[in-house]
């Protein structure tokens, strides 16, 4: 099982490494968001239009303790790339089925768990890497005179572990979700239609982009359970000093909720993969 898993994971990583276009494409979206959207959409600039001084507490309330919209938003983008970077993982399952590669693997003694696990492991590498790239780029932008991520809290070992944990669990969750869809559908067109039906609603019902303070109550209620929100809550509570007072729970609770999402998706994906790879009835 371990040998099969490592051989199949190596295969997936080799394929990923040999497809630089896919990596470049997945980089493009977060870079555009950070360099264009994040720079243009700076809500703090509203003070320039206001005839009255806007108290800093308003912005802290708006961004749940983050010092600026960009800082708030860049933590959100770190979570959102877990979605964008895992989109194609399920499509690969479909293409592998169409091109016969999956048939070959399924006809081997490799267990469905190893086949699914390898895709999950390799599929989580890219979003995790991308998430840290977004964090790094956001920090860098602040050092070259642009809006950047301003980490105002001192992040300890536990905080760093919680941040890494949130990114990893979120990536595994979305990788599981898209692999599950890939094993359930046969046509790429249907897959991309399904992905589009998930992608935007998940983003737009999360707290990744919206300043929390101006969200309507009903959307706050919906967003509170969104896995992206759960992950970015962990990041924001750890990155910004005093942020915890704006959140009803500590990072551990959000991590637990996120873990629940990931476990559910993992279970569903495992069952669907087992069904797809078992002798057909």
């Amino acid at each position: 099982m371990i040998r099969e898993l490592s051989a199949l994971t190596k295969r997936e990583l080799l394929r990923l490494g040999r497809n630089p276009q896919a990596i470049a494409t997945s980089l493009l979206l977060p870079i555009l968001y950070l360099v264009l959207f994040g720079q243009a959409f700076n809500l703090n600039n509203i003070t320039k239009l206001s005839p009255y001084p806007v108290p800093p507490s308003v912005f802290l309330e708006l961004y749940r303790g983050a010092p600026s919209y960009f800082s708030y938003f860049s933590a959100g983008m770190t979570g959102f790339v877990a979605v964008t970077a895992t989109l194609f993982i399920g499509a690969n399952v479909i293409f592998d089925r169409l091109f016969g590669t999956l048939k070959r693997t399924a006809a081997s003694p490799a267990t469905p768990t190893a086949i699914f696990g390898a895709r999950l492991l390799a599929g989580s590498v890219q979003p995790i890497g991308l998430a840290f790239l977004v964090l790094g780029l956001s920090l860098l932008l602040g050092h070259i005179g642009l809006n950047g991520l301003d980490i105002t809290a001192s992040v300890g070992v536990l905080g760093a572990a919680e941040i890494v944990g949130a990114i990893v669990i979120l990536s595994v969750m979305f990788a599981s979700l898209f692999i599950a869809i890939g094993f359930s559908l046969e046509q790429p067109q249907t897959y991309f239609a399904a992905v589009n039906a998930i992608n935007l609603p998940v983003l737009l019902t999360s707290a990744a982009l919206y300043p929390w303070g101006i969200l309507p109550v009903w959307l706050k209620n919906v967003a509170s359970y969104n896995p992206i929100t759960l992950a970015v809550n962990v990041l924001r509570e750890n990155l910004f000093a005093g942020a915890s007072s704006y959140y009803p729970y500590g990072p551990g609770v959000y991590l637990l909720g996120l873990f629940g999402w990931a476990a559910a998706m993992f279970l569903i994906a495992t069952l669907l993969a087992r069904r797809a790879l078992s002798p057909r009835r």
Partner: protein
Amino acid sequence: MTESIQVEGLAKTFNGTVRAVDNISFSVHPGEAFGFLGPNGAGKTTTVNLLTGQLAPTAGHAVVDGVDVFRHPAEIKRRIGLVFQESTADSDLTGRENLELAAALFGVPRREVRDRVEALLERMQIGDAADRLARTYSGGMRRRLELGVGIIHSPRVLFLDEPTLGLDPQGRAGFWRYVQELRKDHGMTVFVTTHYLDEVDLICDRLAIIDHGHIVASGTSSELKDRLGGDVVTIRTERPEPAVETALRAVPGVLSVSAQDGSYRIKAPKGEQLIPAIVQACVQSGVGLSSVSLKRPSLDEVFLEFTGHEYREDGVTPTDRAVRVSQVSQAFGRSRR
């Protein structure tokens, strides 16, 4: 004798209505090359999918290499080799990486992997392209790579599902040469499905003909041809003469005579030896002959005899087949049986 493959009452129905395989039974002896012959949609690939643990049956039993296929599909996958009709090697991996991956999945001992991969690359004549991505391989190279992937773990039973589909005659000849070498060197049992009659005739020790999910005949190629009653001598007379048919029937050794559009089809076990007597019978009946032809029974006729319809070999012209037969025969240094 314990059979390599033993199938009893195997059936597969899709969606409750389409009976792709309908109550078939057969056995394959150890070390034998067994051909499963039939047109597209006859049930060949479904049978392979059933016997290789990829498909659950509607009814029946199958034992391959001593293991119950439907009770232990995972064990079956470990024991058999399988070459699909389509290319399944990973295009984004090199030939070497494809073989190494297969070695890991089939549990080849780590210390043996390198040697086995090198030996197969050489044997399959893809050593020079071993480190090139499989997507750059020609059709023939990909087929040989597929065969290499299928036998990396030295299986005792090898399933080949229309393995030469889409290959040119030289590619086919080369592919079958490797298969024959494997059989000779390892005593491997080979179960091959194909819709190329000539390949079955040249490669297989025994064969079964499947049509519409039923096995309609099985045996050696010679046995099946013999069941047709021997050769067919066709004569055309200069003019119709009813007495000719009676005279022909009286020739010793003639099994049957049928008149057809001004010509006569005469069945006889050794047609070439009867031609002088047939000519003499016509002359004695007072008519001259405009043509005489002798046709030895082929699997085409066997197929026609047992299925009641002509063989549907899609997209292959008689010329293609003639060229292929000639080249494949040449590769084996054998004449067509």
